[in-house]
């Protein structure tokens, strides 16, 4: 299950960044990937649709809330947490 989440989130981010999933490193930030605020909102929408979850995120203050977007690894961790909480 955890691997599924990781694979799918990386796929979503790779699509936004116009990269191959294999080119995405866990320690990269959204900025490293060239994903801007619109790209981020679109990624979150894709994540919600893919996992049928609701992601708490307000574009006015991306750092606030419980959804950590500081790196690829952090996003995967946050999605795993939400999936466990909302689908468990």
């Amino acid at each position, binding site marked *: 299950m955890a691997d599924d989440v990781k694979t799918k989130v990386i796929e979503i981010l790779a699509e936004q960044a116009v990269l191959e999933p294999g080119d995405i490193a866990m320690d990269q930030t959204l900025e490293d990937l060239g994903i801007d605020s619109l790209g981020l909102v679109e990624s979150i929408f894709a994540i919600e649709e893919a996992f049928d979850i609701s992601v708490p995120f307000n574009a*006015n203050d991306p750092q606030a809330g419980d959804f950590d977007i500081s790196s690829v690894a952090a996003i995967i961790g946050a999605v795993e947490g939400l999936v466990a909480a909302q689908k468990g």
Partner: protein
Amino acid sequence: MRRVVITGAGTINALGASVAETLEAMREGRCGIGRLDIRDVDRLTVQIGAQVRDYDEAAHFNRQQIALYDRFTQFALLAADEAIAQSGLTFEGPLAARAGVVMGTSGGGLNTQDENYRAVYEDGKNRVHPFVVPKLMNNAATSHVSMQHNLKGPSFTVATACASSNHAMGQAFQMIRAGMTDVMVTGGTEAMLCFGGVKAWEGLRVMSKDACRPFSATRNGMVQGEGAGMFVFEEYEHARARGAEILAEVAGFAMSSDASDIVMPSKQGASRAIAGAVSDAGIPLESVGYINAHGTGTAANDKTECAAVADVFGHHANDLMISSTKSMHGHLIGGTGAVELLACLMALRDGVVAPTIGYEEPDPECALDVVPNEAREARVDVALSNAFAFGGLNAVLALKRA
């Protein structure tokens, strides 16, 4: 060059069903935002808005009219009635042909679209009411105001998202100034508070779930409103010759396009529109005493707008007042500039500057005098009204005390 003055104003919005009620609410710093009373509100993540409450369409319009008038058209007609009544004008003979309507709206008949998509998709109906198209079209409100008041001159609708009504009023101003017309009924109207309208905005993740707090460090997004603001713009000599009461002079207008991003604002684009309006009015920067801000309450708009004002005005930015009345009436999208122009009229005529309510904590990136929480008495000679739309389309009006 011909001068243009305002001789009538009208409105209906969450703060009141007239100019007097709206200005009273602005003076008192009253908030029109509350829990939305619309169908399927439970399926929305954002459940607040500045709705026009206790509104009974049947109290204003007959059955045939209601079949043709979407909510945004009804608001426009009510606001136009008030504005035209105040101006004292009747449009007959040669004046009718020299008078038109230019109105801003972004969503047009969105309630009509929402209801009828629901009927065909959700309810599986295969037939809709015959007037769906003339009811939902963006120019319906303009056309009905034109028909109702016999306005036969140049008339059209402007749609530039959140700047629609400022672009519309700017057009009306320039048409009179250029000699194309003598009188224009102008402003904006919006009625987007339906399930689909709010759901679409929700998706962008820029809406607040609790309040609109422009310029406050604690701001967390915009809140939608609805309603209309309408004005009678008139050529100065025409108004003077008939002894009309002049509410203010429309002195300047400027527009710009950021040409950069579809949603993120640009300081340069906003600065060019602000500086352009002052320059078009032919007045010194130091004469500007009040700016009704675009002030949406989003992180991005408010800091960019403050930076633009600081850039344009330099030291004088610290001496002028800038407030966002969206904190009270919400963001009326295509109608917002028109309702906000009322705050400019109040500053110029009554010497009362409307507050930015909901202000909790200073933001170093918005370090201007935002008139926090309480209205203030002050003599204002020149007021600006800012509007910066999604799509990077900016429109700023400059008004002078009559």
